[in-house]
């Protein structure tokens, strides 16, 4: 806030604050909530707009007159086949059950990451810091590599494996149909605010798979009396039902909602506390245990309950997280909605670590090195693989069938205009 009072940064700060508060793209000339620019909630967060002067043109809409004249849904498929006069969109996408992917989540869903080279003296360089403006304008998140909406090859270690890429591979008509509505610090208490930035209408758009992924902030806070500030099961139920009720009034019929449970954060202390933090690697003088206790002392620990040397507190946090997950599970069974069905899945942390061990890795390698808290690129990619396979096994109809015309689409439209 001090820096923002400098005259030459005042306007920029004001605009960034507006974007952060509204969770809508900064550059969006037609007001359709999609952008042609990557950062500041642009196409790193929602599929790239292919016409930013026309609000009726955006990713995820049902094609206008089969897109015979223009690409109204930005999936790169448009025009008429000269051989038979049938529009390509009708030929390749009609009846293929195409749909989009939307995620409502927290910093883990948006893929929070602070580059370790920013705080490691031996790795610092002009090049390492050259991405500061981009990283800050994306709120230290990297949705373009995330497990749900990632579409670019990871440049921050690991690899990109995402629900969106899988859905796109399954049906090329889903090209660019993704929305990342996550925010650092999101919990069931404030998720409804996030949902209000959704760009989907029942009248014009295709159905979507909505993933609800709040894996920790309902039990994570930095307060001294951290347990008192955790969400209670009855509050969780009210918050989630209220959010789903609003979602039902927004998404087209035939959509699906997938609720994922909270993570078991025991993994953090158990695997990290005695390891050296990047700041302590040079002189072997700062462990994650020390970092957690420093952050707790200042009341800025992102998760005092789990990032703590107090095993009783860690157990209480784990127990509460399990209770909140049970609430989600129960909602998925009992609640019915007009426009979507609801499913529940546990956050697959155990499966992720097992799979990583099988690949020859160690558990600590799944945690973000700088914050010692978030799942990293590898955990995110493996998590997606596990969830995707589970859905494919249990509820394949959620994902829709494979489009038999994928090869033709690739041959006629190449990369469909890219991302």
């Amino acid at each position, binding site marked *: 806030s001090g820096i923002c009072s400098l005259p030459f940064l005042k306007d920029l700060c004001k605009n960034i604050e507006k974007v952060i508060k509204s969770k809508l793209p900064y550059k969006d000339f037609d007001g359709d909530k999609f952008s042609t620019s990557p950062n500041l909630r642009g196409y790193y967060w929602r599929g790239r707009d292919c016409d930013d002067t026309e609000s009726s043109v955006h990713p995820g809409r049902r094609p206008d007159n089969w897109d015979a004249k223009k690409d109204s849904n930005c999936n790169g498929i448009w025009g008429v086949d000269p051989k038979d006069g049938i529009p390509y969109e009708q030929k390749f996408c009609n009846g293929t059950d195409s749909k989009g992917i939307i995620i409502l989540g927290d910093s883990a869903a948006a893929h929070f990451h602070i580059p370790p080279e920013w705080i490691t003296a031996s790795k610092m*360089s*002009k090049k390492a810091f050259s991405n500061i403006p981009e990283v800050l304008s994306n709120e230290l998140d990297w949705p373009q590599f995330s497990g749900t909406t990632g579409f670019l090859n990871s440049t921050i270690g690991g690899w990109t494996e995402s629900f969106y890429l899988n859905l796109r591979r399954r049906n090329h008509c889903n090209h660019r149909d993704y929305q990342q509505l996550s925010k650092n610090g999101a919990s069931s208490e404030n998720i409804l605010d996030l949902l209000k930035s959704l760009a989907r209408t029942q009248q014009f758009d295709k159905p979507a798979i909505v993933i609800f992924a709040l894996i920790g902030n309902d039990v994570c806070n*930095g307060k001294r009396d951290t347990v008192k500030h955790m969400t209670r099961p009855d509050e969780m139920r009210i918050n989630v039902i209220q959010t789903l009720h609003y979602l039902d009034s927004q998404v087209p019929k035939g959509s699906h909602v997938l609720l994922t449970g909270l993570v078991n954060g025991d993994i953090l202390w158990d695997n990290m506390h005695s390891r050296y933090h990047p700041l302590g690697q040079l002189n072997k003088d700062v462990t994650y245990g020390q970092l957690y206790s*420093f952050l707790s002392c200042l009341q800025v620990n992102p998760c005092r309950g789990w990032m703590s040397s107090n095993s009783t507190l860690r157990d209480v946090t784990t127990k509460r997280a399990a209770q909140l997950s049970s609430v989600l599970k129960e909602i998925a069974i009992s609640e019915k909605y007009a426009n979507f069905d609801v499913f529940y899945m546990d956050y697959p942390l155990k499966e992720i670590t097992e799979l990583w061990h099988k690949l020859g890795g160690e558990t600590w390698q799944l945690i973000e090195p700088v914050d010692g808290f978030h799942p990293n690129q590898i955990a995110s990619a493996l998590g997606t693989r596990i969830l995707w396979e589970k859905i494919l096994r249990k509820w394949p109809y959620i994902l829709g069938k494979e489009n038999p015309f994928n090869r033709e689409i690739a041959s006629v439209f190449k990369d469909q205009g890219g991302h």
Partner: protein
Amino acid sequence: KNHGYTCVGCVITISIVEQLAEVHNSTVKEALERLCGFFSEIWNLKRICFLLLDIFGPTIIKRMEAKMNADMLCYSIHLCRQRAGQPHCHLYDLPKVGLNAAIKESERMAETQISETMHGL
């Protein structure tokens, strides 16, 4: 809460400067200048860094050359503050004389230095 983040930011920055000096076998002043040199011109980041260096640089250099660690230094320039009834928060191991004594000594030095800096400004 903001105070907590300010303190974390200060301790991390000072730690980085210490380590830059150590890795490149340079003086604290050179390390600070090296750090600012890493920032790009976009958003005036480099300019802001050098501006902060003009304001806080002499104070930081003097304390770091007197071998104060990041915790002590950040308390001495009041970017970390002890809350009433709460302990001093520290990232590194406590100094042998105790954090209180070490901070008092650094505050004594800071008073002289800050008045010198303000006079300079």
